[in-house]
């Protein structure tokens, strides 16, 4: 049996999907409405999974207070109400699709000292969700 603890957070943020080196038509063709120059936003629902042994003294894989403050510091402080294209440095190099947001958030959380970050899952809207799993088991 394997145990994972999931914790859910949410943050509103905005983005625009486009590549500066492409023409307006090409951006429009690939990204559709998401290329709108004024950008748009979502209420992102973020789920973070951690795994590891349960500490018998606390009954926990990780203390939620530790996990919450780590996620706050590494992710929410930067992403909450941000225009991701300009305010999240990782998106100077890549398009802030939710696939890439998953990967960037995973990378920011990977150093959590108390347990192994197993994956992240993001609901961009009630209809779209994306999941990023750690490349291999520890």
């Amino acid at each position: 049996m394997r145990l994972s603890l999931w914790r859910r957070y949410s943050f509103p943020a905005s983005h625009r999907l486009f590549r500066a080196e492409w023409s307006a038509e090409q951006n429009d063709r690939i990204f559709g409405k998401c290329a709108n120059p004024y950008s748009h936003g979502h209420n992102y629902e973020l789920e973070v999974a951690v795994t590891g042994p349960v500490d018998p003294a606390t009954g926990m894989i990780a203390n939620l207070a530790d996990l919450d403050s780590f996620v706050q510091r590494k992710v929410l402080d930067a992403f909450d109400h941000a225009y991701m294209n300009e305010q999240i440095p990782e998106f100077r190099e890549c398009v802030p699709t939710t696939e890439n947001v998953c990967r960037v958030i995973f990378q920011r959380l990977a150093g959590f000292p108390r347990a192994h970050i197993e994956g992240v899952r993001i609901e961009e809207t009630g209809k779209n969700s994306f999941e990023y799993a750690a490349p291999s088991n520890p």
Partner: protein
Amino acid sequence: MIRVTRKLEFSAAHFYHNPDLSAEENRRVFGKCNNPHGHGHNYILEVTVAGEPDPKTGMVLDLRELKEIFDREVTQRMDHRHLNYEVPELAGKIPTCEEIATVLWRILEPKIRQGRLDRIRLYESPDLFVDCTADGMKDAR
């Protein structure tokens, strides 16, 4: 292979306290959950069974039988109970989501005879839940 998931809900009370730690230590580690008067949750349990459908019935398992297992093993044991005092399997443990899910896995796994238990997901709230999965020995880290 097909996975079948059935859901049930139960309400229970708990609090977190480790008698080996001082009062201050308990408050520091467990925060509000240390309040000895306890508090409660509406737990939601999702049980997933994996298997091949029987060619005659088209079913992986008889859901009525699963419902009976739920009633007997989960509802009677945990619904409207105080998890610190009334569930022998949790005696001496801190009744966190991790520990409750582990107990439920150990209780349910041998009871599922058609198909095999693939996953249980226990929600303490929409923002906090635990998955137990049948993943062999990978938890030995």
